[in-house]
């Protein structure tokens, strides 16, 4: 349904070209839930902004292709994109505290979205908004409709955002760190909600997060990004049980283990993310990797196909065609 092919995107800043995306490819099938993980600055949000056509000013797509249901997003005009945004593709952002307009009621903002993308009249849109609010577990939706965002808790606001995003039955929902700004108990509630909704709607979901734990919980497949490239992708089982890329291994080692295995200590990945202004010629992860070989420093690794659904960009796979990297 969504297919991104070798996407290159840069911000042309006064300091130089910030290469935010360097050949990102990924596919999302209808109904699939794809997790995108990676450290801060790896290009997760930029990827989302390209999909929705909401890229920011000094940034420009250099090459690549984004196809959404036979529509070529990159060559679609602004008017047509407005129809797609909020209609077929909708988004949920990180910070629910600031994602709603403070001077309009919740109802006003929900109804606005519904009126934009359906033929409902105002009364029907209102009824639909109330229905959506109760569906995402907001008590007393009729009262909430008349309230302003400052009168709602963070969790409630994020529920409103979810209701808004789902109100026009999107085919693709992009959630950019939807729980990061919430406290832990509320996080769990929102994740539960997303899991429930997952089974109720047939929308495909791209879930962007730092948290591999969340990914294991909700996603079908995982895309691991580093320095604007997809370093590894596969099903959740493949990523967790057959970890192929040293970077993914590193991310997993950062996770506190809930299964009682306390022998292996938490290990953050050493070193700093690569400078996107001065990309090294070889593998961007080489400077931080424990398995760096000579070739890693000079030539970026191609994508190795480890199974039909599992790929990894690491030269180690030529040495041992074995997909496992042991730390």
């Amino acid at each position, binding site marked *: 349904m969504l297919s991104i092919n070798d996407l290159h995107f840069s911000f042309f800043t006064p300091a130089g070209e910030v290469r935010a995306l360097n050949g990102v490819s990924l596919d999302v099938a209808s109904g699939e839930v794809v997790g995108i993980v990676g450290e801060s600055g790896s290009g997760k949000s930029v990827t989302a902004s390209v999909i*929705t056509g*909401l890229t920011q000013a000094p940034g420009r797509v250099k090459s690549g292709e984004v196809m959404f249901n036979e529509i070529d997003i990159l060559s679609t005009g*602004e008017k047509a*994109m*407005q*129809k*797609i*945004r*909020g*209609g077929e593709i*909708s*988004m949920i*952002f990180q*910070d629910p505290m*600031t*994602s*709603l*307009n*403070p*001077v*309009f*009621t919740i109802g006003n*903002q929900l109804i*606005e*979205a519904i009126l*934009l*993308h359906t033929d409902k009249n105002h009364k029907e849109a209102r009824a639909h908004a109330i229905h959506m609010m109760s569906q995402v577990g907001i008590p007393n939706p009729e009262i909430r409709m008349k309230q*302003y965002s*400052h009168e709602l808790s963070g969790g409630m606001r994020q529920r409103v*955002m979810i209701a*808004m995003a789902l109100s026009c039955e999107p085919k693709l929902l992009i959630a950019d760190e939807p729980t990061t700004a919430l406290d832990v108990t509320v996080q769990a509630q929102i994740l539960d909600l997303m899991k429930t909704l997952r089974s109720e709607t047939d929308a495909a979901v791209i879930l962007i997060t730092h948290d591999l734990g969340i990914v294991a919980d909700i996603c079908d497949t995982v895309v691991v990004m580093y320095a604007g490239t997809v370093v590894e992708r596969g099903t959740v089982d493949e990523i967790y049980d057959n970890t192929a890329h040293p970077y993914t291994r590193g991310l997993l080692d950062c996770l506190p283990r809930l299964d009682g295995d306390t022998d292996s200590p938490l290990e953050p990945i050493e070193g700093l993310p690569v400078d996107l202004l001065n990309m090294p010629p070889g593998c961007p992860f080489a400077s931080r990797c424990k398995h760096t070989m000579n070739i890693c420093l000079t030539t970026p690794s191609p994508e190795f196909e480890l199974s039909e659904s599992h790929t990894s960009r690491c030269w180690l796979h030529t040495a041992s065609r074995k997909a496992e990297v042991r730390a």
Partner: protein
Amino acid sequence: MISFTIKRFFGAVLTLFIVCTLTFFLMNIVPGGPFLSEKTSQQTLDRMNEKYGLDLPIHEQYINYMNRLLHGDLGISYKRQGFTVNEIIAEKFPVSAKLGIIAVIWSIFSGVILGTAAAMNRNKLLDRAIMFISTIGISVPGFILGTLLIYLFAEMLGWVSATDALGSPKQYILPVITLSMQSMSYIARLIRSTILDVIDSDFIKTAKAKGVSRIRIIYKHIMRNALIPLVTYVGPMTAFIITGGFYVERIFNIPGLGDYFVRSVETRDYPLIMGLTIFLALLVIVVNFIVDILYRVVDPRIKLQ
């Protein structure tokens, strides 16, 4: 809402009381008096002072004045014989009010448009031009601008008459521009900076992601937020335009309240000074009260209390 109004009412009464008292004593500290001129003999002077109660000790004068004020009587003008201050206000205020209201509307209208245009073209030529003009607009005093405009458009080009004050709609142009230049420039800068604050905020991102059109994002989602600081500026702007009116009416020969005010101070026409000060203070208080209510309408985060 009701307790808010009551609180504000008492606040207003207190402010007015302080304004009256201060003006009264300040006015009396300033040397000179209403009937001092070389031609009057000491005898006439004494008679006049007695007639208007100016021979009494100052605190008695004050009490007499406040007593009359409580009954809504602002007294009789010393200089414009036979007219009460109330009558003068009733006659002259409409002239000033008309000019002032046009200037307020024009300031807001043109300021908002210029500020929006500047913000939408951030750092481009249009933005730079508007910011340049508004910097000048804020810093050039009105009496200089007014004099310049008269010189240019009345004396040199002859497009308007320098003497026929407000005689025809065309005659309003120069006084309105002079009177509104500073507030227009200020509003343009204010609107520009608030739009630039708001435009990168998350809720604008949400609106875009919802598929709201660019135009609608500007006039609905951004403007409504940009109105909040604008509304808070309406109070000071009113005061600005009232005081600005003093010299604008002078320069353009407009027979309004402002011109009277200036002359009343020059001639020490005590009741007129007092009356006009109180009236204008009341005006500012009323406008500020309306602004407070309006502020709470445009910004739902603020509760009346």
